[in-house]
């Protein structure tokens, strides 16, 4: 397989197979089991932030994310999950997916992008920290399997370095 064989595109709302593919991929590889509600929640509201990686028509990687106002003071992007089919790993697919999502979020004026990952998930931590994500807190027994997690944050604007209680609400900024 060649990296150029991989095609990346956002979720196609008109193609129900996309959503099914994403769910199948994630169910297979993510330690935390999620209900259909969780998928729908992300995919129906932020289809542009769900990006698929396809190789010869087969979905081999996907990322799911959302972007919302946090405490009414900053735009916060959140990466829900990213997963790459085992046989396609270590070829930069996840990196590309994350990059695409970040670019999209930055375009949509994200102030910061956050996510959580298990403290023992070296692959994911490496992936995000190489981009510039910083561990900001440790979350005790965060996951169902009882592992701790790190909250990782990627600062985009300086709003990310001010406590939200000290940020002016958006309407007061002209």
């Amino acid at each position, binding site marked *: 397989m060649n990296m150029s064989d991989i095609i990346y595109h956002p979720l196609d*709302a008109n193609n129900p197979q996309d959503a099914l593919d994403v769910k199948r991929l994630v*169910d297979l590889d993510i330690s*935390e*089991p*999620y*209900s*259909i*509600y*969780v998928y*729908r*929640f992300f995919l*129906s*509201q932020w289809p542009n932030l769900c990006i698929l990686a396809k190789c010869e028509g087969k979905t081999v990687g996907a990322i799911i994310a959302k972007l919302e106002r946090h405490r009414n003071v900053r735009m916060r992007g959140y990466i*829900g*999950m990213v997963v790459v089919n085992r046989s396609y790993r270590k070829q930069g697919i996840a990196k590309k997916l994350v*990059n695409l999502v*970040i*670019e999209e979020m*930055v*375009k949509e*004026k994200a102030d*910061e992008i956050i996510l*959580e990952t*298990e*403290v*023992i998930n070296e692959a994911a931590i490496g992936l995000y*920290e*190489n*981009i*510039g994500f*910083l*561990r*900001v*807190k*440790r*979350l*005790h*027994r*965060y*996951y*169902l*399997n*009882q*592992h*701790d997690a*790190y909250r990782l*944050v*990627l*600062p*985009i*604007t*300086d*709003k*990310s*370095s*001010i*406590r939200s*209680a*000290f940020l002016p609400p958006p309407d007061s900024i002209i």
Partner: protein
Amino acid sequence: MAENAFVPQIDILNTQFTDVTSLFLSLSASSIPPNQVVQSSSFALFEGTHALEIANKHLDTSALTFPATESTVADFNFNNDSPLQFDDIIIIVDKLFRLTFLWLENNQMLSTTVLSCVYVEKLLLNYTKGKKITTKQDSLKFATLWDYQTEEELDQLYSQLKSYQKEYLQLSQTDGQSPRARFLKNYILTHTTFRSLLIGLVNIMSQLIQLFRSGVVYEEEDVISQLPQGLEVWNKMEDSVCQELVMGDIWAKKVECVTEADAATTNGLKLELLLSYSNIFKKMNELTRLLTRSFNLTNSNNDTIGIGYGSEFVDNVDASTPTNPNPTQVNTEFLESMVSSLSFFESKQPEVTKIIQTNTNIYSAQCFSQGIQKRLSNTRPLNKLPASEDIAGMSYAVINVRYFKSLMNWLKEVNYLMANFNVTNFRRFLELVFWKSGSVGSFDCGTTWGETVVWRSWVQLFMIRDNKSLFGSDVKLCEVMLGQMNWFAGIESGWLNMAFGGCQPEHPRVNASSSNNVQHQGVFGIIDTDPMEFIQRDLSIPKSYHGGDAVGLPPKPQKKNKKKSKSKTRSPADVGSLSLSSFNGEAPASIMRSLEMIINYDLVFMESAKTPYYCSSSNIKVSHREKLTELLGQVESTVFEWMSNISNNPSRQRQILSRSIVNFDSLQVAAERFDLWTHEELGIKEYTQFVPRKQQLSAILRDLPPALPFATYVYYLKLQTMLQYLLKGTPLQIYKPWEWSCVNWYGAYFADNLIIVLNRMKQCNTAKMQKLRYKIREVEKLENPAKFAKLVELMKQDLVFKYHLSEVNKFAGTTTTTTSSSSSSQSVYKTYNHQCLEILQLKLAKLMKVEDSLLDEMNYYESLKSMCRGTHQLLEVYSNLGVSVVCKPEFTWIETVIAKASSSSSSSVGFSDDDSFMAKLFGLRFKSFSSVGVPDPLTFSQFVIATTKDQKYLSDNNMVNWGLLKSNFDSILLEFSRTKKLVKDQLDKLEKESSDGVSNSFGKYNQLTNLLKCSIQHSLTIFKTKQMIETLEPESPIMSKTDIAKLIKSQNYAGEIQYEVGEGEASWFPLVKLVKK
């Protein structure tokens, strides 16, 4: 992406359910358009992540199918072909006991540990259904023998159950016992002894769940949010547990007929094991009962004190004596007994293992299953049962150390504190509690492993009660904090008089105490007594100076306060100060009072020149009281949150510290406002340096910074919190190695500020000492009536003294002129004068002690500062020499993305000057400090400047100036040897203290030894590196970085620094080591 959601508890078994599926499909579902996500304020993503989707095989445990063997176990009954024997019971209880503790810490859930045992499930179901004593059929399965106590009753039972006896008779064929005996033996074992042990075990669980539910353990702690529904029996069990256990013991003994001769046999041992379990289970309730017991930090019979920091304690009062409702010591007997039972298990481990290995009955192995996860309502997806090595790993030794010994040792500390309650001991005690609760152990299982959740929640609940008292005593948390504050900043301060004297009588503390002790006044009832008494423990001021008969302050000259206080009030000045009690009115009282006034000058302030009055509870203005009470309320809530943090896991503790920074920051603002108000409005003039009285009204005064004792102390707490928040990130592995440099650089800044603020406190203290010395000289002069006249002149300018001096003056005048009539008066005057001097000397001694404490604190922060500085510099050098693990990474991709976005949009204007991505990371990393007023948050460019300043050894083109690098190494070594020296001094002092039996300094001791270890390791690392580079013997003093990097590699060093995050809260510093590959 998941957090534990709140799960409403429903009594599934007793609830009637209605199937609404068709209704839902026909009505609600039809109105939802396809591809639409239903959301409401009570249901969105968070709830969605916890939804258990029906028929989703990952989530719906009811859809699970178990292998055939599993379902046999699921149907497990107690009338199986092969009934349980003694061995089985030991095996099952042993496993359940370990599982209980595995549940608490090893990434396990209740349903995969204790509840995975079908016997437990059955028992709980019986209990839930209220079936304590069941029908004949049921009782065979799992009931109690409660009703069958006499031989006749047993005969009756035996005949009733004959139809079942076959299976019981299969056992013990050769032991020569009668069929009845054999039957009963097995029956009883299963139904009474085993049952009682299970109840005891479940009770442990139940006690712990109640403990966790008491509101101090957060849901994310997980231990409480994962109970399968339908087994809500926790609250119902407690009463009968001990009874049942006792009954179980009796029957077990009966059955085994253990005589003295038998005791050494295997059965004797097995019985002993069972009884030891039973003992532990019985004692469990004691632990939770302690949480509602009140202890006494004061001696209520001692009428000299209100709060009684200085009270004498009766030793070893039995906590369980009903005649002593408020004991002064915790009776730890029950814990000692639990610990010794555990030690017994520990010692008998080989025998237990043998029992397990030789046991052939399959049921003790098969009775643990995943079945409960399917059978009972379950809020979690299916989970695996713990691996057998995990169960074995939860050894009795581990359980004992982590759960029982740790609590026992802590209670010993509590008893020590209770018996020796004073400022220093309380501070040491707090250090210990914070140290223990915040300690981070290994990360083996992807989670932290510090003090257990049981320790954290129990200690918090025991120490800090709902009414914010300490150990349920009548001492409030806030009081001890103010006691601390007073020690460092308040002694001999007019502010303090204001704080402790001028308060709302409505305060609960006052109300609570006023009924039994009329002397209680002031905000915390500490009015005259608390701080001084607190301190007095350290000094043993003779009782005569604060005797209970102390008469209060002089009648107040101002008209507003005509009402005489009915009670015997004492001013703060009375403690360790002058009282009229020792005089019998030979000298006019007004004279004595005026003298008092002069001596206790600080405690006086002026309303106006004409109406000087004492700031005490009875005459302070209502508006002043309100101001103070409000402020102290704020202190209380801030301190409460700060102290309650001990119940949190280390990760959350750090988050709470971050919040405390904001709280302390606003408290500091309020405190400063208050300090300035007392300074400017109330005229309590205190400065950071001594101003002789005659100069006080001069203009220089305006330029002197006011002392601001309260704000200074709050600032000190805030800085401590900031430093802790920062350094605690290291053991939690929140920082990447490349960040350690700037974390330590920031740490040095906080430590430096702490030193500055402590120095300020010291200056104020010195000023007070100078003032006292000045006073001593003044009083000495007063002894000589001739000199006195001169002094009067000097003092005349002083408005405060005008009134009183005129009184004294009159008296002095009479004594000099009318010699005959006044000789006795004069001798009284002299005695009185001597007493004044003595008191002043004692006050001085107190302040000297304070100075000593302040110096200790300063030394501590000096050592932290040099450790931070050294570590920062060390990491910078390694980063510059290209040691990759600490090299600063580059994030070019994201930098470009952000740059592109900000150039294309004008609206996203940044707040800071430095817009590099590194600066953003810096800002994010230290976000918690961004809102703080003082000290100024540091910026990234400051970091860059500070760092490059130390890097003169770097020249262009990747070259290094060896000479300069060497001297850089030397200066780092110097920094660490400074740390070592400072730490060693402190350790020596602590050692001396503890050999004097003064205080337990375990918490501090650990912090210091860890600092010592790190500084030695870091010196070694630098030394090694220097030596290694020296082997290059450079011809030219300039060498290339690449050569050095190559050298490190060629010497077979990993080319990396191996780093270790040590154990305990004290390991705020990474251990940086150079290791051979």
